[in-house]
């Protein structure tokens, strides 16, 4: 294979990865608290030939490779649900969720109570306040959560939701189940907590579809390029290999 095909293949490989990311964003269009991902590419220049005896310089070649998948950490739109245990964060910050593997961070605030009255996620992991799990007794009513995260009920104040931030949200690692892993969480002093609302996914559907069309076109045009390059080679072989009789 010559350079045309190799460079084209490197491009196709990253386009395939990009369509995976787009598909994942679109699949999670209705996942509460989901964060869209974008793939970034970087150039990988081929080292040039060092021999000097050739006439003219060696052609500069560069391949493409994916440098990373960035998380889009913009806040999603907040939808009113009226359910008292749906909590959205308007602005920066993360809920702290206690899992078997340690603390995890989430923007999905669709919480509920378990049979013991603990505030939990849909998977049954405990939502953390500044002093641990949040538990409501059987008779407690009128659960309200103030804008600063203070939880109160008919039994009085129950503490404050633990809302943390990170120096750089982009360093958070995804774990699935709407959870993220991160190091060195810092408490957010003035969170903006909205009760009775859920933060939607921040995927921009139109943008994703446009990107998807672009990826498909780039991919198919490369396939065309391979056909053309192949044709060029076969023409060359046929013509140069002709024997004058």
């Amino acid at each position, binding site marked *: 294979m010559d350079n045309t095909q190799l460079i084209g293949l490197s491009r196709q490989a990253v386009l395939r990865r990009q*369509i995976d990311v787009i598909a*994942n964003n679109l699949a*999670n269009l209705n996942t509460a608290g989901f964060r869209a991902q974008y793939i970034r590419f970087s150039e990988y220049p081929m080292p040039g030939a060092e021999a000097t005896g050739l006439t003219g310089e060696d052609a500069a070649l560069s391949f493409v490779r994916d440098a*990373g998948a960035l998380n889009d950490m913009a806040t999603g739109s907040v939808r009113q649900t009226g359910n008292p245990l749906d909590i959205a964060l308007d602005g920066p910050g993360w809920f702290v969720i206690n899992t078997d593997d340690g603390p995890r961070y989430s923007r999905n605030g669709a919480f509920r109570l378990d049979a013991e009255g603990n505030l939990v996620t*849909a998977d049954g992991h405990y939502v953390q306040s500044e002093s641990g799990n949040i538990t409501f007794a059987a008779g407690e009513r009128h659960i309200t959560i103030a804008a600063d995260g203070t939880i109160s009920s008919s039994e009085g104040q129950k503490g404050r939701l633990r809302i943390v931030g990170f120096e750089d949200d982009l360093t958070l690692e995804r774990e*699935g189940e709407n959870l993220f892993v991160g190091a060195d969480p810092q408490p957010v002093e003035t969170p903006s907590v909205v009760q009775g609302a859920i933060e939607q996914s921040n995927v921009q559907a139109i943008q994703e579809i446009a990107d998807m069309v672009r990826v498909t076109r780039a991919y198919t045009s490369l*396939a065309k390029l391979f056909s053309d390059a192949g044709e060029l080679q076969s023409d060359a072989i046929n013509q140069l290999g002709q024997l004058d009789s």
Partner: protein
Amino acid sequence: MNALQIAASGMQAQEINVEVLSNNIANMRTTGFKRQRAEFADLLYQNLRRMGTDSSDSGTVVPTGSQIGSGVRLTATARIMSQGSVLSTSKPLDVAILGDGYFRIQMPDGRTAYTRDGSFERSATGTLVTVDGYTVGQGITIPANARDITINAQGVIQAMIGNSTAAQTLGRLELATFVNAPGLEATGNNLLLETAASGAAQIANPGDPGIGTILQANLEMSNVNPVSEISELIAAQRAYEMNSRVIKAVDEMLSSTANIR
């Protein structure tokens, strides 16, 4: 390319979403029905280039890794337990619960079920029963010659018997509450069953602190809001379409690869 499977998981999720929404709309006029909501979570991620690993010998690290997701899954169809609107029916044995609580119903198989549907009737023997003929509570008998049946806010059932002008107490409706009422299991026929997630039923009288009160000659309608259901249905349908477009796009890419000669 995982994109085909990822988009398929997205289509499946939206299909369930549409099923839940259509069930809500179908039960828009069902007494005591509580709407459900489909909730989703992203699936595991594949780490192609892990963040925080060294990118050179001089100690530079990869700031943001390359994580490729694998789609979406349904986590729950949570029931939203908000109060439904109350409809006046002028039928003395129709009762609505205002606030928290469930009527206890004895099922024919011996189990206890719970319901918000208070459209009760009298059986041939005078027992207070549901529309399916299941006994309400511990069994409250209303004699054949009872007239002017009243049920007060605390659930006490009184009636005039025969020619008597003094009201006689016939029994009391009790309400069950749960720590986690959305954890009840729906069995159809407006009946819910206790589960390990809901916690044990706590029986109380209507009007006790934190417990709902009873409103006679009214029924609680469903808490389905058709406007929000329809707008969510549109969003779900569009999301489904977009996922199917991804499948088409991937198909186009694969066919172009297959056709290289």
